[in-house]
């Protein structure tokens, strides 16, 4: 394998990894804030993809209008889903299990709803930008560079939001101590709803960016959910920075691993990595060891 091909694979890995980071950070945000494992997270991605498809292809809107509109739609949908399902279970006896069961049910419900509404044919969205960027011997399609730029900008904006804004402080405070947050005047219920909305929006951004490369279908959420789990386990469950690092690492390991073996080994590599991390550092590569 030439060194250029190897570098190209690492760059490709970082690009796909940046979208894994978007998915994983959504799962991490919900788990970190509410301790709810959202098994319907893949469906946020799937529905986000359909939103983009309908706005950009069926309605023919320009991508720079269609994508923000789809992301905002996913944000509202995420909030609505939290308010109508998790909200009524959260904090009750056995909520840790009941929320898992509820999000699993939600996942099946949304898949079948998508099948009924959108049909079973696979849909794709055309490339948002064409052309190939050449750096010496390394050639990367501009579309892929756009994926990376959008994903990393989103992650940067999220990090800034969590660190410096009033909402970000409220989310972090609620995730660390719900009662203490309530005492200082933070309405936990509203924060939970917004957190779900943000996580859904992150999934929709990933979907929008991957839609031109992967197809959209009612079941496209499941493999993404599994990748998201690998990411949050690598990074440490509930850790937002961990999910970002975990996503990029997973992307690179997969890309290089596939290059060395073959593409059928992709999932073997990612789940093998996950099992190794669970075995060796169950609290994740970046999480802190529980005392």
């Amino acid at each position, binding site marked *: 394998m030439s060194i250029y091909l190897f570098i190209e694979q690492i760059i490709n890995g970082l690009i796909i990894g940046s979208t894994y980071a978007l998915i994983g950070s959504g799962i991490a945000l919900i788990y970190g804030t509410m301790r709810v494992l959202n098994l319907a997270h893949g469906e946020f991605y799937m529905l986000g993809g359909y939103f983009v498809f309908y706005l950009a292809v069926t309605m023919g809107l320009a991508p720079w209008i269609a994508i923000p509109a789809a992301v905002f739609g996913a944000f509202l949908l995420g909030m609505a889903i939290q308010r109508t399902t998790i909200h009524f279970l959260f904090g009750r006896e056995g909520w840790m299990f009941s929320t898992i069961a509820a999000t699993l049910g939600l996942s099946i419900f949304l898949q079948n709803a998508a099948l009924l509404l959108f049909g079973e044919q696979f849909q794709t969205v055309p490339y948002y930008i064409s052309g190939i960027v050449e750096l010496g011997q390394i050639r990367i399609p501009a579309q892929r560079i756009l994926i990376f730029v959008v994903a990393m900008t989103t992650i940067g904006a999220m990090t800034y939001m969590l660190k410096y804004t009033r909402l970000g402080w409220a989310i972090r405070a609620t995730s*660390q101590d719900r009662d203490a947050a309530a005492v200082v005047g933070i309405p936990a219920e509203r924060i939970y709803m917004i957190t779900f909305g943000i996580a859904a929006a992150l999934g929709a951004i990933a979907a929008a960016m991957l839609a031109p490369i992967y197809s959209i279908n009612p079941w496209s959420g499941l493999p993404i959910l599994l990748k998201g789990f690998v990411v949050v386990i690598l990074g440490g469950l509930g850790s937002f920075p961990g999910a970002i690092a975990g996503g990029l690492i997973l992307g690179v390991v997969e890309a290089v691993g596939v290059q060395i073996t073959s593409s059928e080994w992709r999932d073997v590599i990612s789940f093998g990595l996950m099992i190794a991390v669970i075995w060796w550092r169950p609290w994740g590569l970046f999480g802190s060891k529980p005392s």
Partner: protein
Amino acid sequence: MSDTPMLRVENLDVFYGSYQVLWDVGLELGNDEVVAVLGPNGSGKSTVLKAIMGLVPIRSGRVIFEGEDLTQVPTHEMVAHGISMVLERRRLFTNMTVRENILLGAYHKSVAKDTKARLEWVESLFPILAERRDQIAGKMSGGEQQMVAIARSLMSKPRLLLMDEPYLGLAPKIVDQIVQIIRKINSEGIAILFNEQNVKLSFGVSDHGYLLEGGRMVLSGTGDEMMNSDVVRRVYLGV
């Protein structure tokens, strides 16, 4: 005690699930007063404070503050009504800095004005917290964490401060410091309702006390009355 108390708790019944923990509890607290809720472990004294703050559901009874019925007000709106709380065992946002913790005390929109002036005020009460502003709160000592917790609770400029076991788990020297701080806060015109197991320690600062036993209020009185009471001796020593 004045005729119209600042805080009046009436006939409070509280359940955890089907298990009753408070029976018909009542208490009063006047402007600028420091009142202690006493009782052995498991007597329900923490629950009294949590019920006032809305952290545990009230089955029946009322919480009246400055003439307003706050029984149904959710916890996150209490600071807007002038009540703040220091939770048991400090309960800081342990992954955030000292400064972030303190500023979160002024999160609520109704108290977010003059945040800067209040920050100066609380940092004048606890100069060490200004020095340590960028330290991660969870990495501080117990006494310093208690100072952060108190500073955070003061950022909403409350008229009444609830303190749940403010001395718990602190070294005797630190306890003396906290006692001084409570006196100082009170001298700034803030009423304080706190609970404590140690009767003698409580009357170092409080004007008035209530004694809880098994979820029922069994006695109230001034420090001297309580210290010499047979009931207190019976509750604590079982004689």
